[in-house]
């Protein structure tokens, strides 16, 4: 597993995730920048946030996020700005609108379906009539008993 960073390291020079010179002096802004960075994707990497990534592009994006925050953007404005530039692909948690509703609702709907089915099943099991034995002959019954009783 994780043949990770292989490709990554080939793309990128051995820089690092968040580097000391990127950090903002204002700890509150920096904290916000870090939180935002965790939800933004490094576009040239595979499934990594810009907060974790070593790639040059991730560094550029981190700096961009900080630039926007310093310029006075709210979190939403900063994210919107980046999405308008790089597209929806940059969000690690897609927005819950349009077709993405399927993604967001699939879990809850499936849970309800499963609970419904289970409720029906459980109600049936409360009073299931004893059906005829399923064609085990005497020998098999004996063997089954032997196994079950260790």
């Amino acid at each position, binding site marked *: 597993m*994780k043949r*990770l*960073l292989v490709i990554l390291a080939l793309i990128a020079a051995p820089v690092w995730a968040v580097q000391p010179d990127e950090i903002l002096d204002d700890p509150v802004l920096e904290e916000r920048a870090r939180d935002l960075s965790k939800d933004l994707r490094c576009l040239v990497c595979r499934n990594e946030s810009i907060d*974790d990534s070593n790639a040059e592009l991730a560094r550029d994006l981190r700096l961009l996020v900080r630039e926007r925050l310093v310029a006075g953007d709210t979190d939403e404005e900063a994210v919107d700005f980046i999405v308008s530039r790089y597209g929806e692909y940059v969000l690690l948690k*897609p927005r819950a609108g349009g077709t993405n509703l399927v993604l967001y609702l699939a879990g809850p709907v499936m849970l309800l379906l499963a609970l419904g089915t289970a409720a029906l099943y459980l109600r049936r*099991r409360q009073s*299931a009539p004893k059906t005829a034995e399923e064609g085990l002959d005497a020998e*098999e019954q004996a063997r089954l*008993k032997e196994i079950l009783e260790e």
Partner: protein
Amino acid sequence: MIVELGHFALILAALTAVVQAVVPLIGAHKRWPAWMAVAEPAAGIQFLLTAFSFCALTYAFVVSDFSVTLVTNNSHSMKPMLYKISGVWGNHEGSMLLWVLILTLFGATLAWFGNNLPPSLRARALAVQSLVSVAFYAFILFTSNPFLREGVPPFDGNGLNPLLQDPGLAFHPPFLYLGYVGLSMAFSFAVAALIEGRVDAAWARWVRPWTLAAWVFLTIGIALGSWWAYYELGWGGFWFWDPVENASFMPWLLAAALLHSAIVVEKREALKSWTILLAILAFGFSLIGTFIVRSGVITSVHAFANDPERGVFILAILAIFMGGALMLFAARASAMEAKGVFSIVSRESVLVMNNILLAVACFVVFIGTIWPLVSEIFFTRKLSVGAPFFNMAFTPFMVLLGVLLPVGAMLPWKRANVLRAARPLLPALLLAFALAGLAWSVQSEKSLLGPVGVFLGTWIVVGAMVDIFSRTGRGAFGQRLGRLKRLPRADWGKAVAHAGLGVTMVGIAGLMAWEQEDIRVVQTGEPWTVGAYEFTLNSVERVQGPNYISTMGDVTVRRDGNFVATLHPEKRAYPVQSMPTTEASIDYRFLRDVYVVIGDPQNDGGWAMRIYIKPLTNWIWLGCLMMAIGGVFSLSDRRYRVAAGARKSVPSAGVPAE
């Protein structure tokens, strides 16, 4: 020469597999004992041939035979022996060979130790198992042959990816494959039972050990991979919700569900068709996992071989086996009459709830994993689904599972009174609330994550203790304590595994909620503090390793002026692959890890340094270990040993037992 023999043995094994897939199936249908009996020697021969083939490939790696393309691409004469050997499965072709080796190993085990199974069920299960191997032999021989030779052998190989040169990772893939492939046994049994048209308690008792074993291996494999990521990748993440990780996690979730539903089949003869379906799906997800890793359809940080031809081949295997099995299921499932009758409040229904939570959680992971693909193909909307989504969508299921688990584990079969069953758990509940409150008041940030994790962990761990103690019956405390030792191992397995889940939950929540991080430029000799710790970078030196050059820092860690540890974070450069890796240096303790990473030199002569204080991290893997140990306890329970081979010698058929 040996390599050619290995290649030849593999082809022979494939032919044996064809025979084993066809003859016993016909034999079982026509009730011809001789034809059914073909399955056993065939399974043994298949395993021995594949094992020989695997040894031949290993030999090529050990002697660094660079006329074999695979060895050239993945090995190097300077590499330490351990990594020459682990290089055999550190690549696509070799890992597929390991995959079939394990597949045939399981088949052979069934042939050798499955004497107590009805002959027709055994013949059919072995035939289905062999059908799976036929597909994978074809895959190897036609699309990913490891034995291909190089026209002009080079002087030396390209080496193995340095990230993979690690003891933890050397054993990570074999464990995962043991798990994935172990689920093929559950699949074979499920399909065989569908063909037979019969599922009973004995069937569940045969299937459960295989599932349990597969689940234990998956647990260890996933934990090893996660631990490796933690110490190797340099920022101490332990789980990334990467498609390939999800690929191993989905079968794990379903195998956990299957373990529990098989208990209901075994004890109460209910949930039969659902259990069969789970067995089919669990292996299906193993195949999907293989597809995800090897096709490159879904981009992943660690995709393996991005070859569309291979992807299509695996997709075809997946479609044939899942399609076939599900069609058979649709045709035959109605024949699986449930027998047990139980009330809505009972052990049976909480196990149903367990299955719902695990299966739907698996479904959520699945949707999240394939959604980028679906969205791009059908809605031309290119998007990503990453860790933030999964954390949000997956966690509620685990929280619910954690809340229900201790109560569910205590409920009696058939009919239960929740209040009466849960009364002994009151101390666990109070303790859990108390500790969660303590965590809440002590932590500096007001986030719920940590306290909820502490609550769930305490509730589950203490709940498991109460559960096992309640099994000792009535009597004086000392007497009951004495009886603990004599409880069936399955009871211990249940308690230990459940407690392990609790420990893992605390670890994850603790790490995510209370981690401290510090990034800065450091001059040698100037101390700085992070949290309660003081760090000093004493020196940075260049060190020559066996096949790498390292930049190694020397960091002293103190707490309140007292010496804690000396750490040596490294940056390594592997000249053969011209690739750098960071080697974090970690001071492991029971309650926290201090995690130190050294970065690039700065213009002013300082060094970039990253420090993390990671509380409770080791609990994550400790919990996984406990889950695996619990599984092993359960596996060694007397009733499985009896069922899985050591059958008392019954003189002849027809003699009533006992």
